[in-house]
C-alpha cells in the first residue's frame, strides 16, 4: 500500500509541474497588460507602464521569468497580486477555504444522498417510486448548472426572501455560533446549485451498480446464511460502492467544474471568482499561484478518491 502511495505522489508531482508551466506561459502570452487593464485605468503613459513592468521583471523572456518564479517558489513565496493588492499567499489563503467549504459540503451532501437514493432505487428497481425518481433524476441532471443557480437565486432569494441573495456572511452580522448559522444560511443555495446535478449523477451510477450486484451469487449466499433483506442489501451496497467511487476519482474535477459559475451567480468569494477576475486583470502571479493551488487540490482530491477506492475494493489492494 505504502509503495502505491509513493508512485501516485510522483505521478501527481509530474502533473502539477505540467499544469503550472502551461499556465505560466499561457497567461503571459495573452495580450493585454498586467497593469491598468480595466477600462478606466487607461490614462497611464506607456513609458510609465514599461518602467513598472521592468520593476516586476515582466519584460524579461518567459523562461527567465519562470526561473525566477521557481526560485521564489522554493522559498515558499508565491508572489504578489496587483489586482488584489495583497500577496498571492494571502489571496489564496482567503479564498481556498471558502471554495473548499462550498465544494466539500456540496459533494458530501451529493454523494451521501446520491448513494442512498441510488441504492434504494437499485434494490427496489421494480417499484413505481424508484422508477419515477429515476426519470426525475434524468431531468435534474440535464438542467445546466448555471440555469439552476439563476433559478435558485431568482426564486428563494430574490422573490421569496427565504435566503440571502449573495455573499458569504451578513455584513456586520453576528459572530461566533450565530455567525456559523449565518454562514450556513448563506451556504444553502450555492451548495444546492452545485450539489443537485452531482447528486443525481451519483444516484444513477449507484442504481446501475446495485442492479448489477443485486442478484450476485454472494448476495444469494448471504441470504443462505440467514441474512434478511436489510443485511443482504447492505452487503450488496458495500460492493456496489466500487464503481461509484471509481467514477468519483476520475471525474472529480469535472464534478466541481460548476463551482466557477455558482460562485459568480451567488457572489461566493472563492477560488473560482478569484481566477476569473485574475485572468481578466492579467494578474500574472495570481493566475499562476491559483492554477498551482487548483492543480494541487484536484490531484490531492483524486488521490483521496483513489485511496477510498482501495478501501472499498480489497481486490485492488494487492496490485498497486
Amino acid at each position, binding site marked *: 500500500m505504502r509503495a502505491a502511495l509513493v508512485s501516485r505522489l510522483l505521478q501527481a508531482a509530474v502533473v502539477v509541474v505540467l499544469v503550472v508551466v502551461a*499556465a505560466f506561459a499561457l497567461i503571459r502570452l495573452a*495580450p493585454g497588460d498586467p497593469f491598468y487593464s480595466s477600462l478606466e485605468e487607461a490614462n497611464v503613459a506607456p513609458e510609465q507602464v514599461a518602467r513598472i513592468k521592468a520593476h516586476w521583471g515582466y519584460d524579461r523572456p518567459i523562461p527567465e521569468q519562470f526561473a525566477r518564479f521557481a526560485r521564489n517558489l522554493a522559498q515558499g513565496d508565491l508572489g504578489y497580486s496587483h489586482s488584489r493588492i495583497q500577496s498571492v499567499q494571502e489571496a489564496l489563503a482567503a479564498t481556498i477555504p471558502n471554495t473548499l467549504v462550498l465544494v466539500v459540503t456540496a459533494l458530501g451532501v451529493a454523494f451521501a444522498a446520491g448513494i442512498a437514493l441510488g441504492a434504494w432505487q437499485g434494490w427496489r428497481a421494480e417499484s413505481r417510486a424508484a422508477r419515477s425518481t429515476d426519470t426525475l433524476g434524468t431531468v435534474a*441532471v440535464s438542467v445546466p448548472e448555471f440555469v439552476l443557480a*439563476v433559478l435558485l437565486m431568482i426564486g428563494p432569494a430574490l422573490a421569496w426572501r427565504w435566503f440571502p441573495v449573495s455573499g458569504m456572511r451578513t455584513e456586520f452580522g453576528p459572530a461566533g455560533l450565530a455567525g456559523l448559522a449565518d454562514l450556513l444560511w448563506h451556504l444553502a443555495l450555492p451548495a444546492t446549485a452545485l450539489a443537485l446535478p452531482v447528486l443525481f449523477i451519483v444516484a444513477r451510477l449507484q442504481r446501475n451498480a446495485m442492479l*448489477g450486484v443485486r442478484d450476485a451469487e454472494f448476495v444469494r449466499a448471504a441470504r443462505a446464511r440467514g441474512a434478511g433483506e436489510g443485511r443482504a442489501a447492505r452487503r450488496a451496497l458495500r460492493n456496489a460502492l466500487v464503481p461509484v467511487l471509481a467514477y468519483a476519482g476520475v471525474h472529480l474535477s469535472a464534478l466541481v467544474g460548476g463551482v466557477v459559475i455558482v460562485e459568480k451567480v451567488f457572489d461566493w468569494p472563492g477560488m473560482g471568482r478569484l481566477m476569473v477576475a485574475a485572468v481578466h486583470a492579467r494578474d500574472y502571479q495570481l*493566475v499562476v499561484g491559483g492554477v498551482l493551488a487548483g492543480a494541487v487540490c484536484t490531484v490531492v482530491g483524486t488521490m483521496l478518491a483513489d485511496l477510498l477506492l482501495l478501501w472499498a475494493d480489497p481486490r485492488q489492494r494487492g496490485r498497486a
Partner: protein
Amino acid sequence: MTRGARLAAALLGAILLSALLAPWLAPADPRAQGALESLIWQPPSAAHPLGTDSAARDVLSRLLHGGRATLGIALLAVTVSMSLGSCIGAVAAVARGPLDALLMRVTDAFIAFPRLLLLLLVVAGVGHPGNAAFAVLLGATGWMTTARLVRQETRRLLATDHVRGARAVGVPWPRLVARHVLPALAPTLAAAATFAFATAVPLEAGLSYLGLGVLPPAPSWGNILADADARPLAHWWLVFFPAVAIAVTVVSANVLAETVARRAGAIDADRGEDEA
C-alpha cells in the same frame, strides 16, 4: 428501445430538425431589430410568441437560429473530443510502458488544468475565434474523459480470451483489431459520445453567460440567456425558453446515451477491473 428512449429520440430529432430548418421556420430575421423604444424587453405576445430581447429582436427566431449555432458547436466539439480522446486512449492502451505513462500524465494535466480558465485565456488571447474554431477549442479541452474510458476499455478487450483465441487461430493484428476489438468498443464510444453531447450543450450556454460563447449579435441559446442576466426576474422569458430548449435536448441525449450503453452492457457493475 423503451418507450422513453423512443420519445427521447423523437424530441432530439425535432430539435435538430428545427435548428436545420431555422431560416424557413423563423417568423423574423434573428438580427432584425424592432422599433427601438417600444419593442425592447417585450414579454411574450401575439406578435412575438417568445417575447423580445434587449435589442428588440424576436426571441423565437433567435431561439431557432440559435439552436443551429449551439447544436452545431456541440456536435463539432463532440466530434473533436471523441476522435482526439479515442486516439490518445487507444494508443495509450496498446503502447503500455513509458508512452502510456506519458500520455496519461498529460491527460491528468489537462484534467487538473481548470478548463474554464484555459478557454478564458485562449479567447482573451486570440479574441473570439468564430464559432467553428471555438467548437474545436471546446473539443480540444474536453477529450480527457473519453481518453481514459477508451484506454480502460481497449486494455480490457486486449486481455480477453476471445482476442487471445483469435490470435491463436492466426488472425493478423489489423484484422484482429478491426473485427474483434473495435466492434466491441463501438457501444461504449456511442454512449460516451452522447453523454459528451449532453454536457457540451449546457457548456456553450455557461460560457456565453461568462461572455465567452457565441458572440452577439449572432444568436445562440447561451447568449440569449446571458442577455437576461442583469434582470433574470424581470425578463423571465429570456431565461425560461432557452433553459427549456437546453434541458429537453440534454434529457433526450442522456436517455439515448443510457439506452445505447445499457444495450451494450457497458454499465455493468461487476466489470470493476481497475485500470492500473
